[in-house]
């Protein structure tokens, strides 16, 4: 047993108390900082934060997740209609930490975006791009499964809240396992193919993409959305995007059908149309 013979007992107790209060104060400060936002969401009947609703991003991330100035349209005839609005960016630190060879590929993608962007062909948007497309998505929240259904191309994700498994096959929207951390829905998604992009600016990933999303209500009508993106083949380190999402508060709000396959058939298959004989 270790003795502390030279220190009078009363002074020892006082010092201990001071240290304890200091530690408690520090803990409290840290805890408060970590808890932000302090908003507590309404609950579903089974006691979970209620994220049900129709939501949409209000930013320019689908044009370019990185900070970017405004720019002209790629299609001359569309003039200002399809011009790129400037944006402060949603990437923490402003830029994606690409490996050098990957940055070269991103720049190639960007140069050829009019033909290479999967959105041009109405392909499924992937994750996280689906979450900030310029059209709404709906969360349908149950205990075992939380659905995220997107208006764009009818894209959909099932988030498995129980029975977490590995992705059975690679896919555009990946394989999502979710759990609750207090106020936050945490969604871990893997099993992607390497075909989707992050935006219209050529930002891309490989099939090793791993996305961890954190969705937290910040007020009755807004969510905080964060995604940590990891892909060692393409990026030198994990990086993070964050943005608020806004609720569609119209009482009759609903997802509309955006079956865009029909809108791109002439673009994709038009050159294979039977030539009508000249009359």
């Amino acid at each position: 047993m270790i003795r502390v013979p030279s220190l009078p007992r009363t002074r020892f107790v006082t010092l201990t108390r001071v240290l304890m209060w200091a530690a408690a104060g520090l803990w409290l400060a840290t805890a408060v900082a970590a808890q932000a936002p302090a908003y507590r969401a309404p609950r579903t009947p089974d006691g979970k934060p209620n994220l049900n609703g129709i939501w949409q991003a209000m930013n320019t991330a689908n044009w370019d997740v990185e900070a970017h100035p405004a720019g002209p349209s790629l299609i001359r005839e569309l003039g200002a209609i399809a011009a790129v609005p400037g944006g402060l960016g949603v990437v923490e630190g402003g830029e994606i930490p690409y490996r050098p060879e990957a940055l070269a590929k991103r720049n190639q993608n960007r140069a050829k975006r009019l033909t290479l962007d999967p959105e041009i062909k109405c392909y499924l948007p992937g994750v996280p791009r689906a979450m900030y497309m310029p059209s709404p998505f709906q969360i349908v929240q149950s205990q075992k499964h939380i659905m995220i259904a997107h208006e764009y191309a009818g894209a959909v994700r099932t988030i498995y809240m129980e029975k977490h498994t590995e992705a059975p096959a690679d896919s555009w929207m990946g394989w999502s396992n979710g759990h609750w951390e207090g106020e936050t829905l945490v969604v871990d998604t893997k099993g992607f193919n390497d075909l989707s992009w992050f935006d219209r600016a050529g930002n891309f990933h490989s099939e090793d993409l791993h996305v961890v999303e954190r969705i937290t209500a910040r007020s009755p009508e807004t969510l905080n959305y964060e995604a940590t993106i990891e892909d060692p083949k393409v990026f030198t380190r994990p990086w993070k995007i964050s943005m608020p999402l806004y609720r569609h508060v119209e009482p009759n709000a609903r997802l509309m059908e955006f079956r865009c396959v029909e809108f791109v058939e002439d673009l994709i298959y038009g050159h294979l149309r039977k030539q009508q004989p000249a009359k």
Partner: protein
Amino acid sequence: MNRRFLASVGALPIAVAVVSLVRVPLLGQTPAAGARAASAKAYTPPRTPDGQPDLQGFWTNSTYTPLERPKDVTKEFYTPAEAAEAEKKAAAREGELTTPGTVADVHYDFSQFGLDRSQATLARNLRTSLITNPENGRLPPLSAEGQKRAAERAELAKRVGRWDSAESNQLDDRCLIMAGAGPPMLNTAYNANYQIVQAPGQVMILTEMIHDVRIIPLDARPQPHRNVRQWMGVSTGRWEGNTLVVETTNFNGKNPLEGSSENMRVTERFTRVAADTIHYTFTVDDPSTWTRAWTAEMPMRSSEGPLFEHACHEGNYGLYNTLVGARLEEKKAAEAAARGEKK
């Protein structure tokens, strides 16, 4: 290259983009549908936390029972032995169409990819047709307007070939929409799988084929303006006891229910009658197509799940290659004709 080859290649995109979860049926599994129906009344479905009857889970409506009663059948129900025989015949027919070697130019083998109905969970029943009303189990006669549109379609088919362009192809080969999504939710030859998820005030139905989602609000909201027209229409729902009743209008006239018009109204009823069964009925009221409303019913059987991503359009090499093949055929024919003229 002949038409069969083109047809089989056309079906390919759907196949390559899909992985199917199948269960090998056990011999003698045919359930006694009559006994099921009798016990149905006693069943009380579980409730969701917000008090809705719980329809959630993975389901299939895969069946060999045809929408319309075969012309040589006069009764409403088969005996279990007759039903098993009819199923065996249908499975054999399907197998013959898709087994390599049986037809010289088959390129796509359903059974090899584990996609055909004989290998999947079947939602069996003893009915000789899904249509229950009219009592003859067949679609009612076309109305005058319906006849006119049918004649116009036939006329168009004479002028425009299926492989003239993407747009002249079939909806499923174009990866636009499949019959399983509906509404009404009909049966597809494979992957007839669904997922239902319920949240307070909403029921979501995901159809595996082309990942079609229908989110049905339960708040008695009015239908949108008549100018809103959609492939799957616009659905609203309500609970009548343990039955979910879904009304759908605002169709665009291109729904996969053959020949239906934009004026169609579909009323669907979902009742969970056993832990593993939803009784699904629908009534189609479309005076612009049929002289009277008609009703059909089928069971939806629980399945293991999960549903897979059916990225049909993204993997649609079949449509592309079919069109390339058709243009090559034309070129060859034109060249042959030119040589013939020179002789």
